[in-house]
């Protein structure tokens, strides 16, 4: 048992020791969710402070899924806030930015398979992208992803499967387009 009950103050030293080793994982997830370096830094900082606040709720074990759950929630709140503050409608935000990413970058890197891969990842809907990041980049087991994303394991599996299908389709379509 890591935490003690009551009104005891958070323990920064223990917190740092437990949570800071996962900073890269936290940042990578935030970076892929926000798709922006500055937002990712702000999100991670905010997430760590939130995590400190809720540290009493951490029951030991692997800290990574626990921390990533906080990062994910912070990032999703951030994205919602950003969307409403820019007062762009949901459709415009999603489709506009996708269209832009797709057309601008196509010109720059047509046919570059690595760049295509990154674009296809960026084009995935957030709820698919986060699962791919945790599974393929963090190499987390389904159980941990389920914890971090607050989803049943079955949903993790079906989203992962659909995400992979979309990625394969996206890559195939873009490579075909580029070879025209």
């Amino acid at each position, binding site marked *: 048992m890591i935490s003690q009950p009551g009104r005891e103050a958070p323990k920064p030293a223990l917190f*740092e020791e437990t949570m800071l080793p996962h*900073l890269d994982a936290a940042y990578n997830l935030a970076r892929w969710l926000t798709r922006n370096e500055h937002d990712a830094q702000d999100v991670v900082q905010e997430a760590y*402070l939130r995590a400190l*606040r809720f540290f009493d709720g951490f029951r030991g074990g692997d800290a990574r899924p626990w921390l990533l759950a906080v990062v994910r929630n912070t990032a999703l709140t951030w994205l919602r806030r950003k969307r409403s503050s820019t007062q762009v409608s949901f459709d415009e935000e999603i489709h506009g930015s996708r269209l832009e990413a797709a057309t601008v970058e196509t010109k720059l890197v047509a046919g570059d398979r690595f760049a295509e*891969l990154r674009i296809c990842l960026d084009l995935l809907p957030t709820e698919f992208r986060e699962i791919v990041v945790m599974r393929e*980049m963090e190499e987390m087991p389904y159980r941990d992803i389920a914890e971090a994303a607050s989803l049943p394991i079955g949903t993790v599996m079906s989203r992962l499967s659909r995400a992979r299908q979309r990625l394969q389709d996206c890559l195939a379509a873009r490579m075909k387009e580029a070879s025209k």
Partner: protein
Amino acid sequence: MTCAPVKSLLEPYLDEELDAAQRAQVAAHLASCASCAEMHAQLLELRTAIRSHAPYYRAPAGLRERIRFSVRQAGRNASRQAGGSWRWIAIAAGILLTVSAAWNVALFRSHTSGADLIAQNVLSSHVRSLIGAHLLDVPSSDRHTVKPWFNGKLDFSPDVRDFAAQGFPLIGGRIDYVGDRQVAALVYQRRQHAINLFTWPVAAADSPAELMRNGYHVLHWNSGGMAWWAVSDLNVDELRQFEGLYRR
């Protein structure tokens, strides 16, 4: 096993989520079924592509230190206030987010001119104010409170303005030192970023300056016989906007 059940197990197989018996069954099927083997190969190819070519974004230098500082600060405030207001901690932490590894910045090694020396001074004052929890002597968003507070404490009276309407609310002020003189430090907030605006009277105006050091922007201008130095980790466009409000 036939193809249908294997297809639904291919991804858990790839993800090493199957038990030994299922794993063996899928492997045996893959060895004898070209169509399933092809699907498996494509999944494997996608995985290899992501793992070897999609960027893994590592936390930038300085972020770890910023978090460490803010966590320690929040922890100190929490123990001081024993179950006290988290809202205050959140605000303080938000401001402290801006603290970075500026202690070992290039500035300390690379200055040459007088302006650089002042820039170094205001930047370290800025960082110190955020680390040391001595950000405000007079916490107030009312310029009619902040301005008189400086009277008698300084040999000049700073021009204190509030830009809450423009998204740069005044949150207070303090006395600080730049070089060997006392200066007024006015503190503004932009989202979770703090802006320190230092000001003191000067005999002759020097040239305006704009510097960037380790994620901090420093803007300098002169007006009304005063030197002004704004420091923040805010992006430079918004900091210029802030300068624009003051110079108007």
